[in-house]
């Protein structure tokens, strides 16, 4: 992993078209500005990971539960 120091107002460029700017630093929080092409998806890592986990759990579905959904409206 490449690690480098940046001050407030300084930037990092990744490839030809992604720029990450340190907007401000306050307390333990860093505010980051990101300029990237439209086709680059940007997410907070922990949120993307939580959606991955949720999808993975949703995909493990017991036959019982599926049968319940099928029959639900026939009662």
């Amino acid at each position, binding site marked *: 992993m490449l690690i480098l120091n940046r001050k407030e107002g300084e930037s990092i460029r990744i490839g030809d078209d992604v720029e990450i700017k340190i907007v401000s630093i306050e307390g333990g929080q860093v505010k980051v500005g990101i300029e990237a092409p*439209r*086709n680059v*998806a940007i*997410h907070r890592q922990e*949120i*993307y990971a*939580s*959606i*991955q*986990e*949720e*999808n*993975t*759990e*949703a*995909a493990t*579905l*017991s*036959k*019982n*539960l*599926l049968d*319940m*959904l*099928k*029959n*639900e*409206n*026939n009662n």
Partner: protein
Amino acid sequence: MKISTKHFGQVEVDETKLLKFHNGLPGFEMYKTYALIPVDESAIYFALQSVEAAGLALIISSPYIFFKEYTFDVDENTKQELGLTSPDDVLVYNVLTLREPFKESTMNLQAPVIINLKNRKSKQLILNDQSYRARHPLVNGQEGGGSLVNP
């Protein structure tokens, strides 16, 4: 065309109606093409079935059946990516995580699946709006209209 499915064996699907997820789904990034197969007779629940992986299917449903007040913005990037020009062309489903007993089942309101009906381009959007979470209880939900379905 005929495809193998997780829950229904071999199913005939209309090839022109398949959904195309350019980036796959979070957790299943490698699979891009899905069929929408009704689960129950009233077509409240659908299986979002991977065409490429028979063992992969998620159960989805319209969020408005359970959460009447659900709203979110589709960002400009996504509009361009899906070629969306009108709100009338968008179909929204959310993924259900079903559990036993049923009352512990949840809907993922943080990551709606949006479909452009005009070209079938689809995406599971991840909302930056912090008011929606990945696990909203389906039954006795605190938000919106609560639950209509209580088997």
